[in-house]
């Protein structure tokens, strides 16, 4: 088609097309910060990003957002929640690096807090020691220390802690000829994880068909390590898992369980739900049980297993998990967000969340309060859940952590211990494999 008429119109059209294309291209290139300032009604919207269950929301939680909105009529709170903590953190890291797509408050799990306070990310957070008016003295000392950067900035306020115990299936214990009373059960292994393994062997000798004593050797590894004074890092916060007596001990206990047929060889939190199904089908008799695990057992074992599970103190007390609330510095409402974070993590609110969700608080005063001390959970019958966990929490000491803890833990458990359990790899070989993985993948 070649016409020479009406070409000015065509020129205009071509120019228009080119401009439109340019606009389209530049338009999709800039995913700008949409600073949502005060809306039409003058209210500020504060967004809070969480994972798992924090127990703040108005539907199934303690209704803290509604309460804060009543106290501060100019604030509106929106929570966005992700179930998987690892995926949440991976996304958050990406967003922090771009200062884009962040919520005003972001929750950070203890496994990643050292990464958040490390130089690459430390500058991305507001200092909650100076903004928002939080009372840092109310928290357990080590909880504040974990969230402090090298230059003394406090980037996160503690929400909960994860004191550990051992949850056990009373019916399976009875069938295997073990005691079921929690004091007697605790006495079976008090003071040493080796005694725990002895109990496991006694169970194995008379184990009900198709069951194992413990769910996962990796879970056992985490539990043993959680009570050790030296874990992945040395006293300077540098990764040194190879020479750590804690890692050595946890590895020995876990591999003994893995090779001795004492575990159900499952991977905890497996996305395919095999581990979850194990609760329902009573595939194992014990689970290393941080305080947040009780909710998982309740949900996965289901109402049909109500009253079957009980909680005994762990051989050695420890801490596994717990979180912080942090405020990204690039947000449009840093001051207001810091105030909200301080309010959400104050002792009064910790108590309310515990009452509804069972999260063991990280403020000293709340830990010793009667509300926590006398608390029970319906699923676990008359078990004094609050007392068992708060006693353990009081005994937890700060442990040096490094920026690579979470990653090394994944290699040790998923590529080391699980490989022994599921593929029969020799433990010495598995340890070498983990070392190779760390050398290859962690770029220091």
């Amino acid at each position, binding site marked *: *088609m*070649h016409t*020479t*008429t*009406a*070409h*000015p*119109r*065509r*020129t205009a059209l*071509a*120019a228009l*097309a*080119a401009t*439109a*294309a*340019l606009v*389209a*291209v530049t338009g*999709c*290139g800039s995913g700008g910060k949409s600073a949502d300032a005060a809306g039409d009604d003058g209210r500020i919207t504060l967004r809070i990003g969480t994972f798992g269950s924090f127990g703040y929301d108005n539907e199934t939680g303690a209704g803290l957002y509604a309460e804060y909105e009543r106290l501060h009529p100019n604030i509106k709170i929106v929570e966005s929640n992700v179930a998987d903590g690892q995926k949440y953190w*991976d996304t958050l*890291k*990406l967003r*922090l*690096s771009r200062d884009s797509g962040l919520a005003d408050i972001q929750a950070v799990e203890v496994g990643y807090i050292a990464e958040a306070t490390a*130089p*690459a*990310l430390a500058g*991305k957070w507001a200092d909650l020691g100076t903004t928002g008016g939080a009372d840092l003295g109310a928290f357990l000392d080590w909880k504040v220390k974990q969230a402090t950067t090298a230059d003394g900035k406090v980037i996160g306020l503690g929400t909960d802690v994860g004191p550990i115990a051992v949850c056990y299936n009373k019916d399976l214990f009875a069938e295997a000829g073990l005691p079921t009373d929690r004091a007697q059960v605790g006495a079976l292994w008090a003071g040493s994880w080796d005694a725990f393994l002895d109990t496991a062997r006694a169970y194995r000798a008379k184990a009900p068909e198709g069951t194992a004593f413990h769910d996962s050797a990796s879970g056992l590894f985490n539990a043993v390590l959680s009570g050790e004074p030296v874990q992945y890092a040395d006293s300077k916060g540098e990764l040194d898992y190879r020479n750590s007596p804690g890692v050595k001990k946890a590895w020995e206990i876990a591999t003994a369980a893995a090779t001795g047929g004492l575990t159900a060889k499952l*991977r905890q*939190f*497996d*996305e*395919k739900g*095999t581990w979850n199904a194990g609760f329902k089908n009573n595939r194992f008799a014990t689970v290393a049980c941080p305080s947040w695990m009780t909710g998982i057992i309740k949900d996965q074992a289901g109402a049909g297993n109500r009253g079957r599970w009980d909680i005994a103190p762990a051989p050695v007390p420890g801490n596994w998990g717990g979180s912080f609330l942090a405020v990204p510095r690039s947000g449009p409402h840093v001051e207001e967000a810091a105030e909200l974070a301080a309010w959400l993590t104050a002792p009064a609110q910790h108590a309310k969340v515990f009452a509804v969700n069972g999260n063991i608080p990280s403020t000293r005063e709340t830990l010793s309060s009667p509300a926590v001390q006398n608390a029970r959970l319906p699923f676990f019958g008359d078990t004094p859940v609050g007392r068992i966990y708060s006693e353990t929490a009081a005994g937890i000491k700060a442990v040096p952590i490094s920026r690579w803890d979470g*990653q090394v833990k994944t290699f040790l458990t*998923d*590529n080391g211990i*699980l*490989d022994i359990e*599921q*593929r029969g*790899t020799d433990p010495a070989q598995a340890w070498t*494999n983990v070392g*190779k*993985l760390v050398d*290859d*993948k*962690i*770029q220091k």
Partner: protein
Amino acid sequence: MPAPAAVAADGTPPPVPPPPVPGPDTAKGRPPGHGWRGRLHRWDRRAAPYAFVAPFFLCFAAFGLYPLIHTGWLSLHRVELGGPAEWRGLRNYTGLWDSHYFWNALANTFTLGVLSTVPQLLLALGLAHLLNYRMRGRGFLRVAVLAPYATSVAAATLVFAQLFNSDYGLINTVLGRAGFAPVDWESSKWPAQIAISAIVTWRWTGYNALIYLAAMQAVPQDLYEAAALDGASRLRQFLSVTIPSIRPTILFTIVVSTIGATQLFGEPMLFGGSLGISGGSGNQFQTLSLLMYEKGWVTGALGQASAIAWVMLLVLLLLGALRVLVARVRRRRDRP
């Protein structure tokens, strides 16, 4: 518009023919070779084609070329997600050469590629041949064959992961009924790779079959008639008429499947569940893409991840060069 473009290209002033039908703009009859209008006209002829292809190339520059170059730059640095870049030269690449995990991932990518591509294309060829016959419900069957392709990777993989579940999956149940021991479809290397290849094959066979079918329908019918007259069986016809006639299409599908196999990511990642990114507890099905993802987003070594991305590109270019070489040797042999 080949004529005006050629004129514009050699820069000579365009010999403008008088307009066959004077439009409203040239109503005064002035030839458009003079004045601003003429210049505009010339500019239009030269620029309009570029303006029309510009959107694609601008988008390509922004989302194809720029990431490619930026990745190349990153691969020469030590970069932590969110941190500053630090020059490393080629050490990210030499590090890969020394890394057991890189070679393991490369080998896995290769074996998974062979395990999934070869059966996939053979099945597609046979399926296309069958669909090419006149039969009842042909249209329905052709659509049905494409259905797996329209399923999302995630949905397909999750279903297959349940089927292949070692504890309560359907496949082990059936194997058990038939008297076989249960297979560790996830933790053992070859069963896991076969399971993943099955997913890929299931998803892509129909797509390739339709491409083959389209090519087969372009094969002249008289070739078959001639072959039939010579007494060739159906199989003989397929081997001696169909296959040689659609050879370029087969080559195309091989190239596309090879590219797909090199970038295999979604199936092994989702099949492995929580262990997907490391390709199982012993990296038994970690592909290059998964290794790249693990380096970049899990351990935060963006420089090394970028180096893997570039190596993947080089592997593809190498395969492409190999293919051209084979084709050239073959042509020389065919034309002595």
